[in-house]
Every structure is written in structure tokens, then in C-alpha cells.
């Protein structure tokens, strides 16, 4: 895939406050890229610079080889969906959707045809004469989306568009947006602070922290092989432990987690015996059972069991060393205080530089 949008050493500061620090970012044509990070990590600023509402303090942004960072918003051909939808309250649904087409000076009959087709696509045709204030949140969201899509912009930018919806509707809209993305081959840049939203929708995720990209990868890679401590902690849940590397050979390393518990992990070339390392293991990759399976089997004790409906969360300890495991159901009649063997696959462990 050729680079479509490119940020080259882009920095942005508001007064003395640096929000983005020398960012390089490539977005491919037709991909769904999520910008994920806690609030204040600069992800919305990046979107605003793409849309043209903010200008970079330094650096360049190009779209399809053309520099766009100094262009005003109305000449960038980007459809923006705002968190609060930003529908025009004094226009009907149809007038809202027709607005970008009128700005393009399309002939009247063509506008009518496109508006009709676009509203039918999101099943809002019957509401076209309503005002935005007469629609539900989900319907407003679909109108905003339609309005941003209808003029065939080169990129769709979404700023936490699902933040104001309730959980069920949000999940439904996630699927709907994903489906539109696939069907129309859109390039979408999606800002969110909701990691599960980013994981389910994106082709790639860029994880932001304090104005810098921590990691940019497929959802799979972000979840399974986080490359920094921040990513490991921010995405999903993990057991993060400072450990000592004692032995490295044949692509595997033995590390001591604490309380005399040692684990075998997959090792890259960067690990050396005698080093400190950061060990990360997802709770759902652990198995509890008397029979050790896999290379790692640790003897621990159950200290707490929390019921979550579809799964259980089990707290394990040995000495002052603790783990959290997640199981679908408990195999035995285990109660607090039961000794148990914890096993996991070396391939499921991630070891990071501390």
C-alpha cells in the first residue's frame, strides 16, 4: 500500500504547551486507522490538524503527495464527524445532507438524487423532513455520518463519534461504520479513548501517549505483542511484573518473577542474562488446574474469586507475588485458600525493556 496521508516531523504547541512532539505518521489509502490514547494525549489535535482547524507549529502534512497543512478546512475535502454530531439545527435532515453537495455546486436534481440514495443507505429516508432535534442520538449520529460521506471526501475523520451513545447502540454503530468502511473502501481516521472500540473496528491502531506514538500496529499485534509498558497497560488488562533475566538460550529465556517463581519465555535478541526486564501476561492466557500443561507451571494459592457473569477473575498469590487470571468457569470446587497450579504458554508472554 502506498502512503496516502503523511505526517512528517509534525509538532504542535499551544503557547508554551507542547501537545504533539515531532510526529511521523503514515496513513494508507482505504485503511481504518484508530488514534487511541488517554485524554490529553494529542490524538484529537492530530485530527484537527488533518481537518484544518489547527495548523502544525512545525512539520508538514501531505495528502496524496500534495502538501495540505496550510490549506483552509473547506478546501481539504475531508468529511468530519464530530463527537456531538454538529448537525445544523435550523435545517432538516435532507437539507443537512444536501449541504456539502450544494457547496460543491452540483445541479439540483443530482443533489436530490444523491441525498435520497444516501439516506436510504442508512435507512433514514422516512425521516428526511425532520429537524435534528426531533431525532434520537443514534439517528443524529447516522445523519452526521451520512452528511460526511455523501460528498465523497477523500478521507473521513471521526472524533469520538460514538462517545455519547449508550453501550448497545454504540456496539451496533461500530458494526455499521465498519461495514460502510468495507463496502465503500473509505479511508477513515478514527479518534477514540475506548480501546475495545479501537480493537474491534480498526485495520491499524496508533496508540498515543503524551503527544507521541507509542506503537502503531494491527489490533492483533497491539494486543498480543505490546512494545512498550504504556501499550501493555493501556490496552486490555495485563499482569505486568518487573523480573530478572537469569538465562538466555535458543530463543528462550528464563526469568525470575519473584517469590522463587521462574518462567520460561520467548526471547528476542535484546534479552541478556543478568538484566532486568518487564514481563507481561494477559489474565485470559493463564490456565488453572492441577495438571500442568505447557512449559510453565507455577504453584500458587487462590486469594480471591470475583464473579463477572461471563467469566471469573481469580486472584493468585505466592508470598507477596500476585497474579490475576481470568477463567470462563472454575473447573473444581475451588475456594479462597486452595493451592492451585497456574500454567501458561511461553509464546503468550511478552518481555519488554523495563
Amino acid at each position, binding site marked *: 500500500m502506498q502512503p496516502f496521508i503523511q505526517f512528517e516531523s509534525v509538532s504542535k504547541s499551544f503557547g508554551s504547551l507542547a501537545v504533539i512532539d515531532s510526529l511521523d505518521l503514515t496513513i494508507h489509502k482505504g485503511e481504518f486507522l484508530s488514534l487511541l490514547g488517554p485524554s490529553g494525549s494529542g490524538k484529537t489535535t492530530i485530527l484537527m490538524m488533518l*481537518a484544518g482547524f489547527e495548523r502544525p507549529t512545525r512539520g508538514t502534512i501531505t495528502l496524496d503527495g500534495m502538501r495540505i497543512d496550510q490549506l483552509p478546512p473547506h478546501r481539504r475535502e475531508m468529511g468530519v464527524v464530530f463527537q456531538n454530531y454538529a448537525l445544523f439545527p435550523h435545517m432538516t435532515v435532507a437539507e443537512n445532507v444536501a449541504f456539502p453537495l450544494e457547496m460543491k455546486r452540483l445541479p439540483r436534481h443530482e443533489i436530490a438524487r444523491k441525498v435520497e440514495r444516501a439516506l436510504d443507505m442508512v435507512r433514514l429516508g422516512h425521516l428526511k423532513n425532520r429537524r435534528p432535534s426531533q431525532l434520537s442520538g443514534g439517528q443524529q449520529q447516522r445523519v452526521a455520518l451520512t452528511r*460526511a460521506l455523501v*460528498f465523497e471526501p477523500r478521507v473521513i475523520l471521526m472524533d469520538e463519534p460514538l462517545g455519547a451513545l449508550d453501550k448497545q447502540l454504540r456496539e451496533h454503530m461500530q458494526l455499521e461504520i465498519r461495514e460502510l468502511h468495507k463496502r465503500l473502501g473509505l479511508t477513515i481516521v478514527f479518534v477514540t479513548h475506548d480501546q475495545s472500540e479501537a480493537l474491534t473496528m480498526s485495520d491499524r491502531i496508533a496508540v498515543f501517549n503524551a503527544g507521541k506514538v507509542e506503537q502503531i500496529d494491527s489490533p492483533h499485534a497491539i494486543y498480543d505483542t505490546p512494545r512498550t509498558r504504556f501499550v501493555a497497560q493501556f490496552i486490555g488488562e495485563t499482569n505486568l511484573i518487573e523480573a530478572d533475566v537469569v538465562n538466555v538460550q535458543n530463543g528462550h529465556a528464563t526469568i525470575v518473577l519473584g517469590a522463587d517463581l521462574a518462567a520460561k519465555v520467548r526471547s528476542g535478541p535484546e534479552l541478556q542474562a543478568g538484566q532486568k526486564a518487564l514481563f507481561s501476561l494477559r489474565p485470559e492466557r493463564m490456565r488453572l488446574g492441577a495438571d500442568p500443561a505447557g512449559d510453565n507451571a507455577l504453584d500458587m494459592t487462590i486469594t480471591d474469586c470475583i464473579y463477572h457473569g461471563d467469566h471469573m477473575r481469580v486472584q493468585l498469590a505466592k508470598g507477596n507475588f500476585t497474579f490475576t487470571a481470568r477463567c470462563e468457569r472454575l473447573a473444581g470446587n475451588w475456594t479462597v485458600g486452595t493451592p492451585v497450579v497456574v500454567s501458561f504458554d511461553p509464546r503468550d508472554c511478552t518481555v519488554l525493556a523495563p
Partner: protein
Amino acid sequence: MFRTAQILFGVSVVIFLLMPIVAILPLAFTSSVFLTYPIEDYSLRWFVELATADAWRLSIMNSLIIGLGATLLSTILGTLASLGMRSKALPFANLLRTMFLLPMVVPAVVLGVGMQMLFVNLGLASTYPGVIVAHAVLCVPFVIVSVSASLQGIDPSVEKAASSLGASPVMVFRRVTFPLALPGVISGAVFAFATSLDEVVITLFVAGPNQRTLARQMFSSIRENISPTVVAAALLLIIGTLCLGGLAALLRWRQERSALKAVP
């Protein structure tokens, strides 16, 4: 107990405010040439006088010309000022706002004297443009207050959305900002017109005999000969102002209702 006291107090304040009007208005329908009770015979002769006497007819025409002129001028200037003060790039926006609102608090006599001196030098004294400008100065604050309030109610992301959808700044203003601010502009204009209609003090200083407005005419006819025509004119003014005020309230109510509904 407390509730009863509240109601009693409220009612007495309203009575206190309304009594002077209630006391004098019926005299508009007297047939006598004196402003005295009891009214022996009812007639509409003073309204006929209002419509036929040259001095009164001219003053009504003047009030309309000057009122409409001042409303137009102050609405345009006040709206532009409100738009300008909304910009983040403008330094001292608050200082400017205070300046624009000063005519509300500066004594009219002071403004009147100042304007008279200025207008004599500019050749505007005793001319229609002079009186219109003078009234517009008084009206601008009302427009600014009303338009600023409705601009404040506009979600900035709506304007951003418009520009991202391909609208140039001029188009954003024409298609989004202005239509959304329109109720505020209209109610500002209504206030401006009502202000101009009531204005006497500054008119005394800057208007010549040819620009005698209705309010000014009432003022002088009270001093010269207290005829019931003044009361008839007052009744017209009150009814006109009430209608305009009602219109403004209606517009504001509609705007608030649509703003309330717009919250998702």
C-alpha cells in the same frame, strides 16, 4: 403564611407600577379639553386630532422614519460588533464590549450635549441623519446584548462542520451562523425600535423643528398646553411598544425552546 405575603407583595408592586398608567389612560377618551376626572362624556376626538393635526401627524411620521433608520443602522452595526467580539483573535474584546454598552449607563443629557456640539461641527445638527445616528448610538447596546446572547448559543463545532463540508467562511456565515443568530438579531431590532420611539432627551438636543418625534411632541405639548391628545398619543405608544415587546418575547421563547430541544 409566607406564600401569602409573597403574593401580596408581588401584587402591590404590580399595582404600584401600573397605577399611573391606569390613572391617566382613560382620559384619552374624554370629550373635555381638560385632563380632569370625572369623565363626563366619552369620545374619540383626541385620536382624530392626533391623526389630523399637522404637528401630530408630522411627529408620528418622523418617529417612524427616525425609528426605522436608527433600527436599521444599529442592527447592522450591533450585529457586526457582536460577530467581531466573538473572534478569539480580537484583543481587549471585553474592554470593547464595555465601551459599546456605555450608552446604556451614561446619562442621556451628557450624551445629548456632547452630540449637539459634535453635530454642529459636522453639519449634522437638526438633520434626519443626525437624529438617526444619535438614536442608533442608544440602540446599539440593546442589539449587541441580544445578538451576542444568540451567538453564544451556537455550537462552534457546527460552524467547523460546515467548513469541513466545503463551505467558505462567507458561506459558513450565510448558511449557518447568520440563520442561527437571526432570532437574536430580530429581537435586538425590536428593542432598538422601541428605544428610539421612547427617546426624548437626546432628541431635544440634536433634532430641529423638522425632526420633532412623537415623544418629543408629547413632551412639548405637555409643557405648552396639557391637552388629552398627549394621552391619546401615549396610549398609541404603549400599545405599539407592547406589541413589539411581545414579538421579541415570542422570538426569544421560540429560540430557547429550539435550543433546549437541540441538546441530544
